[in-house]
Structures are given as C-alpha cells and as structure tokens.
C-alpha cells in the first residue's frame, strides 16, 4: 500500500531516519515522516537512498538489502552518499559499481548540510524545467561579446572593452590590422597573434578535404 503524503510539496522521510543529523538542515522545504521503502521520497517518481560511508564500512550488506527492497520502483533513483571518511576511494569505487548495476544515480556529499541541500533541491526542483542548464539564446550585448572574445586564450575582460571602445563593432574589430591592434594598451605581440589566429584559422583542420566534398 503506497503511502500518501499530506501535501504534494513535502519531502517524505522514512520513519526509521528519525534522528538522522542531516534532517536539521532541511529548512527550505517541509518534510513529514511516513512508512515508505526508500529513505526519502523527493517527488512523484523520484526517491533517495541515503548512505554514510562510515556506516557502509561497518555494515556492507545494508545497502544491498535496501536496494533489493526497492526493486524496480521509481524513475529517478538516487543513492546519496555522505563522504565522511578520508579513505573513501575503495568505498566509492564499490558503490559506483553497485549504482551502475542497479540503475541508481550516485550523488556524493561531503557534509550533512550539503546532503540536506541535495534533498531539498530535488524536491524544490521536482517540476522545474531544465532551462537553467540548457543553451541560452538571448543575452545582453557586452556580456555576449565578452563571452565570445574571452574564448581566446589571454584575452580578458579589460581587453574586450579596449577592443570594443576602440573599434566599435565586432566586424570592425575583425578588420583591425596587426599594427592597429599592436598599439592598444595591454596588447602584446602574442595576444595580437592569438586574436588574429582565432579569427583566421579555418574551423576544419584540413580545409582542402572539406572544400573538396562540398
């Protein structure tokens, strides 16, 4: 029988997690205790299993039992691992393998605060569209220009302003000669060379071949 939480916006915490120190840091979303299989239910189809590496070392069988109990339920199945020991490499290696074999997404946190933050965020962003991490199209001119020109090694924000205020448009920057660029304050030979190289270098390393195919 599936547990039904009081509200859609609460994180459901497995009753046996009472006393887990990370709970005191869950402040941005409400939570309630309930009779559930995973440790936290953070969305309609997402759940979290919590494991501290220190505990795992003492009871290595624990996590396997929990995973077995979980079966194939939930779409997003997170195993939240608290890295609370210094020699973590072996445990993480093991858990990575377990996670891969059981369709779990491994997330590492290094403090209870951080672990709590992940649980909060999973709940808070349950229905959020991933726009923030998608490629964006619109942006204001200067930051777009900065973003674009600072792709070139050794060009910094100050240089972008120097270029833009001296030549005006992107196209005029492109048409500036070596001499014009060389006298700009902050521009050494190497910087000028890198700039022009980036503008003139063909995208494809073997242009002959590409031309041929076209």
């Amino acid at each position, binding site marked *: 029988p599936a547990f039904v939480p009081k509200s859609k916006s609460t994180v459901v915490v497995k009753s046996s997690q009472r006393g887990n120190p990370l709970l005191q840091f869950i402040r941005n979303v409400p939570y309630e205790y309930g009779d559930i299989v995973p440790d936290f239910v953070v969305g309609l189809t997402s759940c979290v299993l919590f494991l501290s590496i220190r505990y795992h070392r003492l009871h290595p069988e624990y996590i396997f039992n929990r995973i077995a109990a979980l079966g194939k339920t939930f779409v997003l199945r997170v195993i939240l691992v608290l890295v609370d020991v210094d020699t973590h490499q072996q445990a993480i290696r093991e858990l*990575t393998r377990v996670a891969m074999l059981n369709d779990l997404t491994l*997330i590492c946190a290094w403090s209870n605060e951080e672990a709590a933050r992940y649980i909060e965020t999973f709940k808070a962003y349950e229905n959020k569209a991933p726009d923030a991490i998608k490629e964006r199209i619109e942006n204001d001119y*200067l930051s777009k220009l900065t973003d674009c020109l600072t792709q070139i090694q050794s060009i910094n924000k100050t240089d972008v302003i120097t270029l833009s205020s001296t030549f005006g448009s992107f*196209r005029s920057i492109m048409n500036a000669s070596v001499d014009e660029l060389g006298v700009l304050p902050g521009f050494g030979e190497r910087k000028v060379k890198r700039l022009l190289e980036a503008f003139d270098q063909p995208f494809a390393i073997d242009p002959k*071949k590409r031309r041929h195919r076209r």
Partner: protein
Amino acid sequence: MSLPLAFQKAIVAELVAEDALLVLARGLGLRNILGAFLQIYSQPQNLVLLINTNADEEAALRDDLLRSNDVGSGGLYFRSVTSEQNVAERSELYRHGGVMAITSRILVMDLLTGITPIHLVTGVLVANAHRVTEMSTEAFILRLFRQGNSEGFIKAFSDQPETFSVGFATLEKTLKLLYLRKVNLWPRFHVTVTESLESHTADVIEIRQPMTKAMKTIQAAIIDCMDVCLQELRRSSSAIEIDVDDFTVEKALFKSFDVIIRRQLDPIWHRVSLKTKQLVGDLKTLRTLLGYLVSYDSVNFSLYLETILATYTPSTGSYWIMTDPADKIFSTAKSRIFLHQEGYADPDDPNMLPNKRPILEELPKWSVLSDIMDEIELDMHHAPHPEGSDTVLIMAQDQRTCTQLKRYLSTPKTSMSTRGKPLMRDLLHKYLKWKSNMKHFKDNVVTKQKPTQGALALSGSNNSGLKRGAPPNKRRRVRGGGQAMSPITKHSTSSFDHEAEAIATFMHATQEAPTSSAFVHDHELEEIDDFTDHFGLIEPSNLVVMHSYAGECDSKLLENIKPRFIVMYDPNPTFVRCIEVYKASNPGKQVRVYFTVYDNSVEEQLYLSALRREKDAFTKLIRDKSTMVLPIGDTQTKQVQDQSLLRNIHTRIAGGGKTGDDHPLPRIVVDSREFRSSLPSILHSQGMILDPCTITVGDYVLSPNICVERKSISDLISSFASGRLYTQVEAMTVHYSQPVLLIEFDQDKSFSLQDKSEIRTDISVTELSSKLVLLTIAFPTLRIIWSSSVHATVEIFEDLKRSEDEPDAEQAQAIGVDPDQEIDSAFNLTPQDILRSLPGITSKNYKHVMNNVESIRELTELDFNSLKAILGEGPAQMLWNFFQRDSRLDMG
C-alpha cells in the same frame, strides 16, 4: 652548423656519447646544440622523432639546418608532422626517414595504432624537457617508445633550471619519465663556459637613469595597492588553511608568485570565494601595471588605467580600485598628461582641449637613448670602422616599444622641441579620440545593459559608499580610513566621466576640422621613410636596426647583423648571454654595449633576481645530482607487465592463473581530443588497449552500452554555464543505454564539491549542486562517477568493463553522426568555441556553419542573404545585428 665555442662542442660531444638530460643556462645557445643533433640525424638511414617543440621553434630549426647545409638536402630529411597530414601521408613520411618533429597528440595516436614503425626508430629528441610531467603526453610517448624499442636513444634538452629545482625531487622524477639516468648541467658559472666567454668581453657602458617624480609616486602607490590586496588575501584566507608566509610584496612582484599562490589555493580552488579569486587576479593586474609604468608612455599608461576603471562595477569590482593609493595612481598618471588650468589655451595646437595645459611627460629613457645615439654618431664620424660595418642594434622588450622608439629617433631634435614632443602630441590626440569613443561606449553598452547598476556608478559622486553600502547618514560617523573612501569614489568613477563628457562634446565640435585627423595620420605614414634620413652624419650603408627580444633567436640575430654598437633599452639576462657568446665567437670584432636601466625600479630588481634565481637553481641541481638515487633497469615497463598479470589472476572470470591469448586485454575507445588529458596515458599504463578515433558522442566508450563524458571540475562548471553539458548528455542518452558523466577531481586537489561554509541559506539555481540536480531530474538514466583522481577513474573503468562486451570502434564512430553533416577531419578548437558563443548559433546549427564557412572572419564577411541561407531568418538576424552593432554609436 658550426659551434664556434669550446664549451658548446664539449656539450655536444658529451651528449652524443651518452644519453642524458641536458640543462643549459639560458642564452648559451641551446638551439644551436639541438640544431647540431638535427644535422647529425637528418639522414634517410635514421628515423629520429623530435617531440615537444612548437611551430616557431621548428621553423627556426629548419632555417638553421638549411643555411648550414651546403648541399641543401638536410631540409628534406627534417619534416614537421601535424594533424594536417592524414594517416597515409604520415606513414609515408615515417618510411622516408630523417628527423621528424611531431605534434605529441598525433604521435601518441600513431604509436597506439601502429602507424609509427616503433622498432625502426633510431631515437627520440625531447625539447623543452622541463615541461615533461607524469601527466603529460610526452611521458606517455616515451613509455610507448621504450616498450616497443629498447635500443633507441633518448636525449632531452632544457634551458629552464628553475623548473627542476622547485618541488620535491623534481629532477629525479623527470629523469625517470624520460627513461634517463644522467643529467648534464651547464650553468653559466661552469669552468669551461667561463673560460670560453671571458676571454673576450665586450665593452659595456651601464647607464642608470632615475625615474621621474611622478613615476616614483606611481610605483610606490602600486606597491601599496599590492600590499592592500595581500592583506585582504591573508584576512579572507584565514578560514581556509593556507600558508600566508608566502604572501609578501617582494614575492608578489615576480611572476612565480602566481605559481606559489595557485599551488596553495589549487587544492581548494573550486570553493575559494569569489573575493579571493578577484584578489589573486588583481595582484596580477597590478604586477602588469608595474611593468607598463616603465615601458608605456605616459598617455598610453593612463589610457590603460582608465580601461581598467571602465571594467569596474561596484558588485564585482576589484578591491584595490577603491583605496587611497589607487586614487594616487589614477591622479598622478593623469597629471603626467595634462593639468587643469582655467582659461588656458594652447598656443601650439588649436585642436587642444580648452582649460587643459598639456604636460606630456616623456619617458626618461628616451632622452638617454637620444644621447646615446648622439654619442654613437660622433664616434662613427671620428673613428669610422675600417670594414665599414657600423650597424647599431637597439633591443627593446616588445614590438610596441620598438615602433615607438623608431618614431622617436626619426624625429629631429630642434631648438623648439624635444624629439618626443610631436610623438606625445599625436598620442594625446589619439587619447582624446579614444576618450570620446569610450564615453559613447559607456553610455550605449555598459549603462544600458544594467540600468540600475550603471546609473549608480555614474552618479556615484553623490553619496559614495557604493561598496560598503552604508546609508549616507551613517557614513559621516565613520572615522579615519573610512572617511577617505568617499572622495576616492568621487574621483575614480565620476570625475573621469565628467571629463569624458567634456572631451566628447569637444571632439564632436572639432570632428569636422580636417587638421586633427590628418595631423595624426600623416606622421604614421612618414614614420618609416623618414627613419634613416635624419642621421645626417651616418653613411647610408650603416644601419640602425631595432628589434625586440626573442630568447634564443637573438644569438642568430647578432650573428646576422654583426653590430658594432648594441643598445639594450630594456634589461634582459638572456640577451646579455647572447652578447657574450657573440663576442666570444667573434673575438676580433669591436663591440660596445650600452645597457640602460631605471635606477631603484622594479625593472632593475626583476633583472637582478632573475640572474640570482637561475644561479640558485643550478646550485641546487648540482647538489641534487650528487645525492640522487636512480633505479637500475627499466622498472616501469616491468611494473606494467606485473600488474596485468595480477589482474588476470584475480579476475574471477579468467579462472585464476590463466594468462595470455584466450583473454585479451580490455579495450576502450577513446576520442582523439582526449589525448590532451592524462587519462589515456594512465589507462594504457594499467594495461588497457586504447582505440583512438574521433567520436561525436562521449569521450570514452567502455562497451556497446556504456559511454562516458569526462569533466574536470572547471569543465563541469563551464559546460553547465554554456549549456553544452545538457546537449552532450542528451546525445549520450539517445544512443547508449548507460550514459555516464564522469566528474573527475584533480589528484592534488581536495575531493569535494563545496565547502560547508559555502552553502547558502536558500536554494539557488546558480549553485553547482542545483544544476547537477536539474541534470539528473532531466535524465534519470544518467549515471555519475565521482572520481577523486585519474588513478581512481582507471580502477572504476576496469570494474565497469568486467561484465561487459568490448566496444567496437567503428560503431562508436558512426554514432551520432548525421550523414549530411559528416565531418571526418579534426577541428581547431578556439574558432569553434568562438562560433558557439555567438548569438544565433546553437548546438544544432554550428556544425552546419562550420561545413559551409571557412573561418570566423569569413562568417563576418558574409552578406545578410548568405547568412540567412545558412542559418534561417531568425538566427541570421541575431547574428547580423551582433556583428553590425557599433558600441560607440547610439542604436536607439
């Protein structure tokens, strides 16, 4: 190639006799020595690989080789190999023989795929050996070479003793990576070197020129600013345990300070606060300013300062800009250009701004140079050189200085003005023009972009306290240092703006006057023609040559020009050595050297300490060499065999003791771009077989199901920001049942994403953790590997492959490639990155653009209709507007 000096011959003889790492002091002719080896081996019966050189070095070496070779066939047997040659061409070149300079990334792939006939290789020459580290591709190449060929030689070259002397047992470690057991140290103080060089010394005149009062003030103020930054840095880093003893102004003057500070902060760099990062950046800016103070003329120096000021915003700005000494820097720099004087009208120049009296301070070294040239002129006149070669060589640190000095020297001295006056006038006019542009730029771009913030910055004079954010009434009660803050804000941001406004108005009024622009323009054209005309006393056959320092290449320059007089306008330790070598190899030649340096300046300090640091480094290396413990035999190869044996034993499926053919080594398909990182090298050293090829989706393919995208922490942050990661994961999810994101931490850095203290009270979408959550919600099938180091990654890869089938390289290559957009050659990354950051360009259409357009330049030159044909209406319009928009003009 002729090596004229006894010590150079000794070095080559020593290195020919036995494989070793050669560490030579800078300027003593390392390139000639490397050239001597090229000459020895550039024969068809040899196949020698030269690695770790860049295109410029290769070109210079080729030049030397062609020149030295009488027959002219040497060039045929010295080839550069880059990604531009395809596999067939490369394999033909290997058969051809001779010396081949190969890009490391390409060579690794050729060694792995067997295109390079390893057993036929005569040996490997490693240039720039100081850059070889455990993680570098060069170390991987040498390991592959030693595994396939135990007979061939390895000879390594370096002229950077400092690199080997820092850190724990660096020399020893490097020797191990190079598979070498011997190091040949040749410092300047080596007996043989000293004997060779000091038999014939040049006649040196050292001139110590004091700086002007204003320059001294600025220098002191910059150092004060650095001190302020360092104090802030110490304060803000008290929470994170770092050794603050290293944070002193003396150390901060040197470039090596950046290394020291990064080494301390690197383990925690991804969770260092923005403020600390800003401070580290500020120190770098201030150090550049110290350099520009003596190398830039007063007008350009001030212009640069104002550009820095223009980037300043109260929220993200540099701390030092708001301090007292910073104000001193800005105001003193300005006072070197002009002073405000009510009712002043310039008698010489009608186009000058009213109420401003030009000061136009010239660099003190200019007049020194002028005097030197007069003296040389006299000398030439009274005692002409018998052979008639009286070339004067003037050396400066960069092209900019050279251009300016040329202009300066070509202007005749008159009773009315100094040589520098017309030049300074021109600079002033350019400055005024720039200033009015800057004003428009600020109005149009900076202010519009963030109306609230921009307006705040511009009206900053009213109530100051921008940074502190204290309400005005409270501010009055603040005492001492705090009080000094308000006039500074006023000066730094607003008075410049007022001035800019005035200049812009003035420029607008006089813009139509043709004299102004023509005045500037004509001089530029004349510059070169006029150059030699004004040295009336010098015979036309004599030349004044001006050059910027270029390291090792300078000795070639000296040999070609054979100057009688050398003026070192800027001090440079390497060039001093070059002169010594030149003089010693041409004992009969008269050489007089003028050496100018600013007295009590940072410039002088840097020069002296560079010499001292090199000497100290050699002393340490000599000591290290005597105590070094090196194992006998080829231990690393053995280790690999042992490990693969062990692995086969404890792999349960393999059934214990069975080894060999029935269970082949695990394979991994690796994207060729990944060979810039160290993971392939380590994977290989652990006994995996790598299939290098170009794959579109993912970086590593472990099995037909598992595909891995590798991200270092900094990559992770930037690819989240650009949205590229989303696209990459999306593609992996479509084509593989187990897409994996590998988050790889650096071995020497701490294994954690964020510090407890960095966690904010509320959930913010800008946090890395929030983005990670969004990613996993969007792609529930995505698996994440958290790896604390490259070595941990290798172990995890081994685990994951255990129960999986081997991947198929051809299949992996075919995945994700749209047949219409097929791209089979590699791409230059920087132009591609620029393209992808342009408006209107998305991950969907950028490949299409690259297939139809040659370069960024070509893209900007397309007309609107062509853009529309490639991108479609909307994106084309966005891109067109972006290219078109003039930041100085009001676009409404």
